[in-house]
């Protein structure tokens, strides 16, 4: 291992060590997780969801919808916009999930810096429950804010490591889903990618219990596809993406043995590949 690579790994370890002690009490929802593979970050939605900025700069926009476990009353609709200038990355997103008596509206902001060898970002998501369509009319106290961060590094030729603590702090109403620190590593060989992620289970002290995701993708042009498997309980999913110039259309489905299938579909412009 070269000294430069060792230094990067060391930096990543330091970041993870810094995030770790507070990450296990974090919580988060997944309304900005679009139909994309877990790695790499392809648009500003990754910055808003994981705090991981994408390497490609420029403008990007994406809109997607998620139907959780096939439940019509639990559908998420999301719009995310991003801009990159040199290493700076900014993101803005809005999302609405669920029927009025269940759901909430979320507004997300992300900021970070990224280049070829790494990136880091922070995210802030504000949510407010709602009791009717299209209105921020939840009772007082039903709003909450969460703050998270993420970092990724190129640890070697074609090797990426990352960490994401999407919920470092919360204020007000609790988010719909508790999420903890996730760490991952990816191997990239041209258009082929493979990754492995370990997520700490919320509520388990010091992250001693983990969940794991393994995936592989071939991300070519004009088509790309990916597969993922996950444990606890064992489940899997796949997705496809079609590109034309700066535009892309993607869809994914993941299957849970008890709850059923979660469908995602979206359209995006700009961003990475």
């Amino acid at each position, binding site marked *: 291992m070269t000294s430069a690579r060792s230094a990067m790994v060391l930096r990543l370890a330091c970041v993870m060590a810094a995030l770790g002690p507070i990450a296990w009490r974090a919580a988060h929802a997944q309304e900005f997780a679009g139909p994309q593979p877990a790695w790499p970050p392809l648009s500003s939605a990754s910055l808003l969801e994981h705090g991981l900025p994408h390497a490609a700069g420029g403008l990007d926009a994406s809109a997607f919808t998620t139907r959780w476990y096939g439940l019509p009353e639990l559908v998420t609709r999301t719009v995310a916009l991003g801009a990159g200038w040199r290493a700076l990355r900014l993101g803005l997103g809005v999302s609405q999930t669920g029927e009025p008596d269940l759901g909430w509206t979320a507004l997300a902001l992300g900021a970070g810096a990224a280049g070829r060898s790494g990136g880091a970002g922070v995210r802030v998501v504000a949510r407010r429950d709602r009791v009717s369509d299209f209105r921020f009319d939840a009772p007082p106290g039903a709003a909450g804010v969460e703050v998270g961060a993420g970092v990724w590094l190129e640890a070697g030729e074609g090797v990426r490591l990352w960490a994401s603590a999407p919920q470092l702090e919360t204020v007000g*109403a609790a988010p*719909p889903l508790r999420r903890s620190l996730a760490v991952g590593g990816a191997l990239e060989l041209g258009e082929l990618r493979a990754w492995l992620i370990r997520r700490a289970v919320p509520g388990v002290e010091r992250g001693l219990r983990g969940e794991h995701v393994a995936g592989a993708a071939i991300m070519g042009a004009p088509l790309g596809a990916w597969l993922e498997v996950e444990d*606890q309980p064992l489940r899997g999913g796949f997705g496809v993406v079609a590109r034309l110039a700066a535009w892309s259309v993607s869809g994914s489905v993941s299957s849970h043995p008890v709850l059923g299938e979660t469908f995602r579909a979206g359209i995006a412009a700009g961003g990475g590949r």
Partner: protein
Amino acid sequence: MTGGAVLLVAAWSAVHTVLAVDRAPHETAAAVATACAAPGRPLIGELFYDAIGDDTGLEFVELYNPTETPAALAGMRLEAGDGSGPGRWTSRWTGGATDTVPARGRFVIGGARVVPAPQAIVTLDLQNGPDAVRLVWPDGRSEVLGFGAHEFPEYVCGDPAPDVPSGSSLARMPDRSDLGSNALDFQAASPSPGRANRPDRDAALPSGSLVIAPEQPAPGTRPRLSGAIANRGASAWSAGELVLIGREREAETWRERFAIALDLAPSPGDTLPFAIDFDAGSVGKRLLEVRLALPGDQAPENDVDSLRYRVGRGPLMVTEIQFHPVAGEGEWVEVRNQSSTPLDPTAFRLADRGTGVGVPSDGAGEIEPDSLVVFAEDPAALRLRFSGLDARRIWLVRPWATLNNSNDTTGVADAVVVRESDGTLSERVAYSAAGVPAGVPLERRGEDWWPATAPEGTPLSPPRTFAAQAARFDVSPRRIGAGRFAVRLSWALPWERARVAVELYDLAGRRLQSIMADGLAPGRSERNWSADATPPGLYLLVLRARPEHGPEAMTATQPLRVEGAAR
């Protein structure tokens, strides 16, 4: 010898003879104290010296002639011995010229109140032990029967027989027993004057051994009658000789229900179980008399037993059981008159599966057909808990048999048993407490028992009916929090009964907990659940159901939002 000398000798001889006769019993007693029976002579078969209460006229001594020829009793003396001192024998009866014991027959010497009447009626005035009786034959031979702890050997043969409790006799067992000791030959028995102590052939139905299963058979089924057969005779009988006859009382006549030859042939002294199946017949209350028929049975009095049972449902049906009250209302049981005529509640008894029997009181009126009444441990507390209840229809049952709250190893917590006052079963409901939330009664829905649809129960009212439901599984409300964490889970399945489980998942698909463990539930039902221990978030409640029998299965999911601040 001169005439005077002859007269003198004759006079001396006469005096000597008289003195010898007077002395003979004592001297003979000392000489034959260990002789238990005079060979070839009748024996003491049974002695009854201590009746319950006043003995007068009830005491008897039975003589048994084991030989094949009649035995004359002329000159034989029956003496009573007072064991508190030596030589205290007094004569009670002396046989006359016509007194004879038939071959293999019996001769009873006893009081006027002995039944059947003795051959010789005499007041024996026997004492309780340690005492003795003795037969002294004209030739000087004798037989002694001593009972109790004796100090003087003249009163016993070998070891004394036991001093039996009041109401029992000392009987030679078996009737010919001659083992050289009163203790070996005699034992306590029920008095049987004039009859064999142990008959040669005697099949007996031990009292109370009859059991019918099920206790309340359905019409047209074949319940099982079981019991025991005892051979109380001295000899065995052959398999198939014994016939079990059952008959039932109908109106003023008896109707035979079965007559079955049993393959049982217990050895003398043994008892063997039997079981037969028979047709239950039509709906109704029954008194079944079971009789043994054995050719040559010498003790018919122990051949009969009976039991009461019911075919089909009884007039009072249990409809609701509160076995674990939590609001101080006491335990209670709701019953319904399902007959076509009014019923008097005091003609029924309430019990658990133990031995206690509670009697209703303090209510008023009869139970009209299709009406409900409540049998309560504490009517006042029940009315306090449920205002507006008709006090006349709430009956205090005392003593109240406390109903168990937890299952035993068989999966049954307890049973509620309603019987008529004559013991005939009206209904028995064995229940399980598993899965029944604390304080929620069990209620009857159709033929099944389930936790009540109204958590507090519905005394004197039918079960609460469910509102129509569009979805197979529903959760209400779907958003909770701010101190309101009660959630009602309801389901409407396409099956009458199903195995149902409810689990909680988070939005990431993690299984967090079991809300309702897999168990049998009605196809249409509700269950309350408190989510107060669930952290704020969005959750998914998953109902998994399958019919009690069959391969089908279904899963239904409903979201639940729990509000609250982040922890």
